């Protein structure tokens, strides 16, 4: 039996100090921390938490077309630093990812910029140009490497077209991700509709703009007996519908983002465009419902909905500002806040950010069992950092976290056994 290529020593896995033995890009085994071995490279973990490489199933990397906001190289750099070994990149680029040429371009750019990862998995457009009128060539997109389909950002209003899209995608064995938003009810909204939108004089988006579409999708999924994945769920009403659907055996899965678990519409006070996101930040009650749903598995996975924008685009009055929060750099630290608050356990984090998204989108996942891909991060939860434009690797500095001190840093990241970085001082 050949020896390991790499041993990651003295790391904490499920409350036990271990060493991770890696051979030819896959996990060989978890061994006692001091088990001697003369072969392979040694990396000293310094007691950091060992976690699987995370999967972010919902990011916007902006290339092609909007490289000034983010490009694939900078987006993947932020992903690597944030602990993500794989990301699913949405199709609202320019041109839209509705052809094999764009899919291939994105994959080539990723391989060129970061040959050892993180991996970029394109999500193909559900409709041509995301216009919601005609199906995109889904088979061509699947063949080119898309792992799912979505009209994210521009939800498909027609229930008939959406039904056909689900049916067609099912033949390809790929899931449809829906941005649940009734475009008429949500039109022109800058924030959640409620007490604060009324006071600030801003047009609000009512929760039913989301939950009506959630209900539609659930009913279609049940009728067709096909899977549907619901993107960035933000409110109690949607959670209750998803809970009901799961109890009925509907093949529905759902995601939410750390910002919906931590922040409310109060963040928008003072016309804070950095907190303008779609769906909007909701209320305390919605946060409570989402936290419970995440704990119970009603919400299956966490995603960032990483949406980088240039500073000048957010430095405008509220109505003009684009939606979105840059999330890849801060996601794990925000998630760790939830661990500190007792909302999640570290095991929950592994499930929400790795095992379940891997299962949903048929991606390889590291469970630290023999033969698993050696995608891992070392995370120091005691290390605090202050979010500044300089500490963010993404080009998008648009986060309400600016100026905040967050817990926990990724101090090392390995993908298929290759070390992307190791901050010796930080670990």
């Amino acid at each position, binding site marked *: 039996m050949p020896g390991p290529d790499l041993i990651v020593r003295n790391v904490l896995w499920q409350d036990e100090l271990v060493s991770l033995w890696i051979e030819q890009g896959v996990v060989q085994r978890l061994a006692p921390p001091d088990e001697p071995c003369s072969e392979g490279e040694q990396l000293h973990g310094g007691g950091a938490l060992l976690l699987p490489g995370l999967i972010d199933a919902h990011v916007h990397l902006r290339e092609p077309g909007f490289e000034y906001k983010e490009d694939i190289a900078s987006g993947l750099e932020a992903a690597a630093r944030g602990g993500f070994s794989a990301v699913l990149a949405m199709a609202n680029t320019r041109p839209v990812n509705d052809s094999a040429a764009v899919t291939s371009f994105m994959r080539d750019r990723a391989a060129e910029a970061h040959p050892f990862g993180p991996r970029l998995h394109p999500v193909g457009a559900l409709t041509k140009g995301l216009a919601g009128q005609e199906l995109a060539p889904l088979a061509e997109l699947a063949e080119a490497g898309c792992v799912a389909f979505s009209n994210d950002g521009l939800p498909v209003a027609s229930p008939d077209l959406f039904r056909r899209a689900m049916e067609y995608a099912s033949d390809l064995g790929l899931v449809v991700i829906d941005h649940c938003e009734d475009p008429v009810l949500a039109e022109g909204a800058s924030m959640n*509709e*409620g*007490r*604060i*939108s*009324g*006071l*600030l*004089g*801003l047009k*609000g988006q*009512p929760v039913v703009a989301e939950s009506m579409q959630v209900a539609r999708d659930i009913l279609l999924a049940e009728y067709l007996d096909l899977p549907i994945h619901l993107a960035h769920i933000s409110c109690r009403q949607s959670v209750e519908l998803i809970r009901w659907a799961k109890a009925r055996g509907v093949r529905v899965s759902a995601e939410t983002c750390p910002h919906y678990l931590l922040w409310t519409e109060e963040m928008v006070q*003072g*016309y804070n465009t950095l907190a303008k996101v779609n769906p909007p930040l909701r209320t305390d009650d919605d946060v409570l419902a989402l936290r419970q749903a995440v704990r119970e598995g009603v919400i299956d996975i966490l995603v960032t909905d990483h949406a980088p924008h240039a500073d*000048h685009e957010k*430095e*405008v*009055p*509220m*109505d*003009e500002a684009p939606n979105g929060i840059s999330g890849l750099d801060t996601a794990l630290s925000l998630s760790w806040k939830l661990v500190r608050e007792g909302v999640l356990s570290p095991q929950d984090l592994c499930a929400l950010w790795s095992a379940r998204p891997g299962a949903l989108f048929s991606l390889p996942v590291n469970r630290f069992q023999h033969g698993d891909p050696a995608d891992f991060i070392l995370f120091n939860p005691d290390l605090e950092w202050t979010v500044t434009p300089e500490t963010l690797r993404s080009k998008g500095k648009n986060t309400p976290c600016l100026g905040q001190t967050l817990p926990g840093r990724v101090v090392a990241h390995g993908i298929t056994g290759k070390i992307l970085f190791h901050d010796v001082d930080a670990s």
Partner: protein
Amino acid sequence: MLWPHKDLLCISQLTAAEILYVFQVARRFAEINTRPVKKVPTLKGKSVILFFVEPSTRTKTSFDIAGKRLSADTYSLAASSSSLRKGENLKDSALTLQAMHPDALVLRHHQSGASEFLARRLSCSVINAGDGWHAHPTQALLDGFTLSEVWGDDMAGKTVLIVGDIAHSRVARSDVLLFTALGARVRICAPRTLLPAGVRQWPVEVFSDLTEACNGVDAVVCLRLQLERQKAGLLPDLREYARTYGLGARHLSKANPGVLVMHPGPMNRGVEIDAALADAENSLILDQVSAGVATRMALLFLFLTRKDATDQGDARGDQVESPQPQSPSLQED
């Protein structure tokens, strides 16, 4: 009183004492408007840019006259003649204007929060002359001043009704804050389609029946109905709106004796208010316009002289004293 504010963005930033102080100063300036020569040198050498990105006639004219009567130099700029039309964003346009060293920027903008946005970025005073649906603090101050001229400053025991398109009205939001700050009870009346989200949490009583809403009120503020609300599906048609929410004598029969009628203008006669009521003896609509000039003179005085104190390194920090009754600055130029 010392004036502590750099900007005027929303009535919520003012205490009741500060609101009454504005009235007190306005009362003194109102007297100037009745003189044969309506000009004093109080703000000589000061410059005020009237940046009206959203079109306006009466508010802009009111500020313009107010500034000129205090001898400030006022410069009007509309969106159509500014670089905004060439694609420049609001921040860059405002920074460009600031580089010309005005003492104050009076901003009217169609987006809520635009004034706050600029106030955070400009060192000169920013006075909100209406931002989207959010706030119109100078209108509320002139409305309050108009009523205080009739009722006196203590509005406890008075009931003010605001009727019309509350959801899209910056005047309504600011009036509610001001009247409640001064102790009045406030009612609002509108069809549900024209009520803002969360209105049940406002310090107001909410009505949908105008006759009921008028019962026992001391003043009614009618709001202008923007005709595009019908196209937006918020109303069936203007005739029905006029029948249901247009203020008429039949509604006021249940109001308290001496009920006062107000309207921030411009009016759609026969839609939100009966034409005869607008001209009736108890109508304060033109008094509001006169009060607007005096109130804005007061505000320009307070904000522009405040800056002097900081420039001169006043030991009291960034506060400035009020004009004294015998102030020579109020003499004719």
